[in-house]
């Protein structure tokens, strides 16, 4: 079935030689061990987070009046809701671990060095995006933990002289945490950050394909 569809498309677009050359038959060092899989694991977790995140977004309403109730509903009333939200939570936590291990492996192997500087830089940007994802996602359930942790977190830039207060107001959409904070965190979490991460991932992967994985030591 899959093969039939593949051949049907290939007959029209002639994609087979391209896929063979660029993906399937791409030479890879024979000595890659499992520590080379942390990047792939992170990407897999990203896919899991996307699927579970979209599933939850179907029910979630980003307003202080409804956020808590809709999270409660999608967790306990929807079929498999507990598992979907659980996978989202644990995949997010595990992603921080795999990103860290991936960076550590690249650092120890000196794989960030010439000619792979740009890949390291996009990687650090992706790392910042992952942290921004977890910070914005934390507020969305609108429970006590979410509210007070975000209050402390968004207060931090306030300590900077001159511009601090302004930054806090931009983050919160006002001086207090409320409906505006929730809607801007929601937009960051489900629209802005995902599009940024998708664009950077394409660059990150394209560069690996172009340069190949750094030679194992």
């Amino acid at each position: 079935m899959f093969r039939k569809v593949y051949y049907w498309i290939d007959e029209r677009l002639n994609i087979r030689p391209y896929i063979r050359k660029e993906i399937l038959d791409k030479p890879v060092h024979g000595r890659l061990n499992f520590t080379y899989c942390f990047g792939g694991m992170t990407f897999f977790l990203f896919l899991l987070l996307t699927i579970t995140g979209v599933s939850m977004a179907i029910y979630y309403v980003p307003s202080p009046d409804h956020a808590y109730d809709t999270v409660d509903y999608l967790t306990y009333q929807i079929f498999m809701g507990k598992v979907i939200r659980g996978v989202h939570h644990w995949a997010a936590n595990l992603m921080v671990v795999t990103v860290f291990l991936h960076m550590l492996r690249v650092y120890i192997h000196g794989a960030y060095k010439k000619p792979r500087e740009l890949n390291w830089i996009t990687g650090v940007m992706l790392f910042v995006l992952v942290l921004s994802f977890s910070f914005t996602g934390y507020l969305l359930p609108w429970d006590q933990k979410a509210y007070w942790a975000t209050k402390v977190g968004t207060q931090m830039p306030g300590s900077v002289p001159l511009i601090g207060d302004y930054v806090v107001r931009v983050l919160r959409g006002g001086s207090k945490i409320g409906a505006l904070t929730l809607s801007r965190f929601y937009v960051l979490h489900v629209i802005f950050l995902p599009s940024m991460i998708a664009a950077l991932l394409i660059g990150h992967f394209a560069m690996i394909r172009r340069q190949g994985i750094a030679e194992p030591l």
Partner: protein
Amino acid sequence: MENIKKTEEKEGTTFYPSHLFKEMVVMMFVFVLVSFILALVFPVKLGDPADPTDSSFVPKPEWYFLAIFQLLKYFPGVFEAIAAVGVPVGSIILLMLLPLIDKNPERRPRKRPIAMALMVIILAVTAILTLLGAVT
């Protein structure tokens, strides 16, 4: 024997099936870990609804922000900005510029004592701060 090994390494293998298989095994493992072990054995909880009037709630950040949270306690008053913004923003900028700062082409860890020492020190400090943040 040595020769055969060398050619094998030089020529390597192809992405499909050898490397893709390895990735699939790892992904399967991650999927089972996340969905069947973590999500089912440690279900994620929903606390009480947010109450802005109840300031008695003591928040604690997620484990990966604990080091910064702990660092804040050592920089009171006017120095707070150093820990709250200076350290995280500074570290990210340094991390981003790393390949431009470290121009040494040597890749083997044993030949890079400074880079390895810095790594160990930073990891140790972060680990200690995280632990202190977790227990206090």
